[in-house]
């Protein structure tokens, strides 16, 4: 049709290929991670209670990673095949569109010339007019053919697109797909799952639920909540050691998550990026994990196993008294939390609640640890969170018997 512009074929073959490459790389990385976890599960680098707990936490992760790998790696092939068709037909469609446009212009130009000839007294049937009419019919044929071929190119792209979509949808049919209910809930409430995570903490320990409730109801600042829970003084009774460690990790994650996206501007005001609560919770867990890993790495650098000669030359470090440590730590934590609370306040009341819950849990663990240390100093109890089956080497009070030759940094013999 004259004046019609043939629509371009949307998409990018190059973009699809890059996407396929990225998905394949991600899939490989997920597969590697699954492989690492399987290796840890089947040929662990350590043995003992900690390993047993670690393996129990691996749980379904390798399987889920395998599913995700299938999604990512599986998508690469269909996307590349679609990219090849798209690129070829896109080139053809662009050429046909230009050709169609030129033909339309030519048809209009010829039309104007014919009108001019007729206006000048020429009749239909005049050889010059007839020649122009023949040329015009040729251009109309070019235009029509371009439209048909363009439509066919679109049809081939649509077919390739449908085939690719079918393959992708087939890959999406597995047991890691979000449930209908989950999708509905996410649509209805943007904060439902974030609050759900906090609810999980409450299920783990009734005391944790109290911690959240106190923070919620009283609306205290983080430092005040910390003081409340330090003063409570009976956290030794809360949950099992493993349970406390778990809630402590979660508490750190909640606090870190609440701060995510909040930045201090040059004028001192705090702004918060728009992040969903569940994103904040997971992001906070990851940040807490990375911080702890960094601490472990730093600690390794700062405190490598000492050579005997070094140990002989240096005096033993004086341990601060329990009172000093508790007081210093409490002061530091209060200052730190006052700053953190200012950051999370930018995120609104939901973020504040999440932070208060996290701070309370962290405080609970801290208080628990402090209680343990006091008891240790008094020689009343062992450390239940640390293995005590290594001959009492942890607290240095038991008689040293020399390093176990199996604990070499080069790894265990026999490939375990």
């Amino acid at each position, binding site marked *: 049709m004259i004046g019609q512009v043939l629509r371009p074929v949307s998409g990018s073959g190059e973009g699809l290929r890059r996407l396929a490459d990225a*998905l394949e790389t991600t899939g490989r990385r997920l597969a590697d991670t699954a492989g690492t976890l399987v290796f840890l599960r089947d040929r662990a680098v350590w043995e003992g209670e900690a390993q047993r707990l670690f393996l129990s936490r691996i749980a379904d992760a390798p399987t889920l990673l395998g599913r995700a790998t299938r999604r990512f790696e599986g998508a690469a092939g269909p996307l590349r095949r679609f990219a090849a068709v798209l690129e070829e037909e896109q080139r053809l469609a662009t050429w046909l569109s230009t050709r169609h446009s030129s033909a339309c212009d030519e048809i209009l130009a010829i039309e104007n010339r014919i009108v001019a000839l007729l206006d000048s007294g020429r009749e239909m049937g005049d050889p010059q007019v007839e020649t122009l009419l023949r040329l015009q019919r040729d251009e109309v044929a070019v235009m029509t053919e371009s439209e048909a071929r363009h439509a066919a190119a679109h049809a081939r792209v649509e077919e390739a697109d449908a085939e690719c979509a079918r393959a992708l949808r087939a890959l999406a049919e597995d047991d890691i797909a979000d449930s209908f209910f989950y999708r509905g809930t996410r649509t209805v409430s943007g904060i439902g799952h974030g609050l759900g995570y906090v609810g999980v903490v409450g299920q783990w320990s009734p005391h944790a639920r109290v911690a959240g409730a106190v923070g919620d109801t009283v609306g205290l600042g983080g430092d005040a909540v910390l003081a409340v829970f330090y003063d409570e003084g009976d956290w030794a009774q809360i949950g099992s050691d493993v349970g406390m460690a778990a809630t402590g990790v979660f508490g750190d994650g909640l606090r870190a998550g609440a701060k995510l996206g909040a930045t201090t501007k040059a004028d001192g005001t705090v702004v918060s990026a728009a992040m969903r609560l569940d994103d904040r919770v*997971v992001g906070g867990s990851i940040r807490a994990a*990375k911080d702890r*890993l960094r601490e*472990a790495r730093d600690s390794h650098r700062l405190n490598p196993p000492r050579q*005997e000669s070094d*140990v002989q030359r240096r005096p033993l470090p004086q341990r601060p008294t329990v009172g000093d440590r508790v007081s210093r730590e409490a002061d530091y934590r209060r200052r730190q939390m006052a700053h953190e609370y200012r950051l999370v306040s930018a995120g609104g009341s939901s973020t504040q609640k999440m932070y208060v819950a996290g701070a309370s849990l962290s405080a609970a663990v801290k208080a628990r640890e402090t209680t343990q240390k006091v008891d240790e100093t008094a020689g009343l109890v062992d450390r239940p969170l640390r293995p005590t089956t290594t001959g009492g080497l942890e607290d240095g009070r038991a008689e040293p018997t020399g390093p176990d030759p199996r604990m070499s940094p080069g790894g265990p013999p026999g490939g375990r």
Partner: protein
Amino acid sequence: MTIYRVDAESVIGVGESLAEVAEGLALMGDPAQERWATGAGDTGPALEELLGAWRHVRLALAKDLAALGEAAADVGGLYLDTEAEVCHGLGRGAR
């Protein structure tokens, strides 16, 4: 008696790797942003379904991997501390 066979630095290295993957999973971008490449057909929505509609498991997996990474840091650090204290204890015994 528990027997430890440890390469603590490797354990921490594994933890770091797990945390990195966790971060990658958690920060996975919005697949709708790839529409410019997929075009206006069905591939775009299908890709969003494939990459985006396992968010619940993805975030849970990210959280689990982060927790495993953190556990590795704790365990690796604990072994390193133990090693250091063993050496320390030997030095003290020699004085």
